[in-house]
């Protein structure tokens, strides 16, 4: 997008104020396997029965806090099925420093992902319909 009087359209439209990922504000999943903050969360943050309190639970607050700072929380980083996380880890692997960072390929995180199935809550995610193909 272009600029208007020195201010970019994204700034004018308010993109910069958004957290890195909006899911934990806009979405909430009350599932049999537990409460999830987003469709890619691998670990339930609370059992299903705690749907009322989990919305503002310390666990969800922490996830939001990281995202507001433009960072991925440990929770997100354990959700290896999440494309945001995958892209992040991929970037880390490609960057000269990231390649040295053992955490970018943490076996522990991968282990957790396997243990918990690594399954997003919302395998069937609605994205906006667009005419033609976009990637």
């Amino acid at each position, binding site marked *: *997008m*272009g600029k208007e009087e020195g201010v970019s*359209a994204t700034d*004018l*439209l*308010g993109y910069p*104020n*958004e957290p*890195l990922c909006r899911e934990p*504000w*806009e*979405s*909430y*999943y*009350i*599932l*049999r*396997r537990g409460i*999830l903050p987003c*469709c890619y969360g691998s670990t339930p943050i609370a059992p*299903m029965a705690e*749907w*009322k309190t989990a*919305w*503002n639970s310390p666990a969800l*607050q*922490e996830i*939001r806090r990281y995202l507001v700072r*433009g*960072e*991925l929380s440990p929770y997100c980083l354990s959700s*290896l*099925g*999440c*494309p*945001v996380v*995958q*892209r*992040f880890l991929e*970037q880390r692997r490609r960057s000269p420093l990231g390649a040295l*960072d053992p955490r*970018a390929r943490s076996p522990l995180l991968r282990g957790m*992902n*396997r243990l918990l199935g*690594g*399954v*997003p*809550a919302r395998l*069937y*995610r*609605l*994205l*906006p*319909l*667009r*005419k*033609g*193909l*976009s*990637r």
Partner: protein
Amino acid sequence: MQTTFNITYEDGWYPVEHENGRPFRWSGPRARVRVTAAAPCRSVWLRLTCGVWGAAPSLPSLTVAVNGREAGSARVSEQPGYLTFPLGEGCDFDVELQLDRTFSAPGDVRVLGMMVKSLDAFDEDALDSSLELEGWYERETHEYFPFCWMGREASVLVPALARPGTRFLSLPIAAETGSGEQVLGIWRDGRLLAEIPLRRGWHLYDVDVPDEARPAAAGEPASARLVLRLNALCPPEAHPGDPRALGVRVGPIEAHHDPRRHAQVTSFYQAAQVEAVCAAAPQNGDEVCCGVPAVGDGWNGEERDERGVFRWTRREAVLLLPDHVRRRRRFCSLPLFSAFRNLAQQVTLSAAGHELVRLDLAKGWHTYSVALPEPGGDLEITLRVNVLTPASSHPGDPRELGIRVGAVTLHDDERRHEREVFLASNAVQNQREMQRGATVLESFPQTLGIDLYGRCNIKPSCVYCLWEPMKALEGEAVDETVDDRTLAGYGGLFQGARLLVNCSFGEPLLHPRLDRVLDLAASHGKVLELSTNGQAFTPRTVGLLAGRRVHLYVSLDAASRATYARLRNDRWDGVLAGLLCLRDARRAGGGWPRLNMVFMPMPVNLDDLEAYFRLCRMVEADALVLRPLLHLEHPGIVRERGGYRFDYERELMTPTALEPVFAACERYAARYEVNVVSQFDFGLAEASRFRPAATL
């Protein structure tokens, strides 16, 4: 395995010519061909695609002799169609084609008999699909089912129909006429086996063949010849510009012995059932939809986005609500779209110089409800935005753009008004809290994930399903009831959500209170997103869904019976019949539910990609959704199914391997006019914002 024949054109033929890149030859009055096979066959058929192309003053009769003995004769049609003759037993056939009349075209000195587009030989015992004998026009392959138009009467050879155990006949047919105007009779050996009243468009029909019509003596040919007769041709106005005498389109006819498949397919086309389904679309009380604003000042032209038709306002636009449309209704539902994410855009609505309401606009589409001034009368409402959509966000488009406005609805339901006001204000608050970086929220989520039903009708589970670990994770909650009462009990979490997304590991259409869940969602103005495997489509569930604000995601990942069997099971035909029934119900229901057909590209199904686009076009899907197979590290899932070894890790495609798939999708999307939504780009926008020091 198909037998290979060698066909040599001998004397009596003119040289090869081409039309639209396709070769053909004219014969003289008499022509010969030689047909040879590597090994002797019990019964060989010769099929000519021939005609006189409207050039001959009268239609000639063709007589065929094989190795000196007559094999039959038939009238050559004007337009290219099939003529088929039995060559008999053996592996070497000298075939003579003799025409009873010839003609010459002006300016062409040749003596012409017939124009032959192709000559094919078939081994009856090796047929893998039905063989059109006579009364058919040339095969066409640009639709989901490869098909031939039949005239009023046509004959066909169906393999395996006479095999012991075979009971049913499956026929994909497309009629251009409405319910039952055309009736197809199916005859065998002079006996009427069945009569099918045909429905408009493609449908799958399944016929129970009477016992006595199934000779099963050992050593007899397993294929059987059927004659199809229509009571009426397709009216010429249904195929303008096409001079042929057309009946209906018929796809590959198959014999089978699966009573469950028969029952499932049959249930969908029994007239009463389908009519009930199509009539089931719910009406919305006293509301009146005024459509997208079409008159009044300040509007840009009509456009369409993922939500539907809309118009951009300029800075100010006037919405006219005439008294005869409004009829004292008190509320107006306005779907508005703002591109701003920081709530910087507001719209003020005023009438007769008085401000009615000032609305903070949340990003994207939201419905805002406005109480209209009393009493009735013609109403001119001015919408004025405080800030325009930045011109730099739509480079190349010089228009003054305010907000998008969708189809406006008027109603008199106070509770609906209150609900819509709450929904919109929750969206605004939710966005405000997010923009502020709040971690404790007073607002509620706009999307609520729910888990309607924990059981599935696919057993064993789909090859890539993580059924066991998921059920283990669900533990005691596996049998927890989640229904309309549960959802209503979620209070603000339910009230505040615009979208309910079902994320069950299970099939939601099996839910015993599906009707109540749909009613609850409808009465609260929610959009419901349901993913289904398509095997739970029945006339009942399709009827329940007709006209509902539901986004269906049908996960097939296959466009053929064979691929479907590798991923799931042998219930392909029932799914197909259900989708065709759903197509009709959606037409009756104003396009609802929306239909999204999911395809996860994997080596197992890549050969089906083009056919999947054709399928989407046939069932009139709103979109084909390309979805990545879920990334799992070392999944260790290997399953044998449908003669295929599904190794999850091998099916995960790399970005490089996906490139040609995406390119093919671009081509097919344009060719078949199918919308494609790619879910491969989730996370791209976020990735552009990773901070260099993002923590691990």
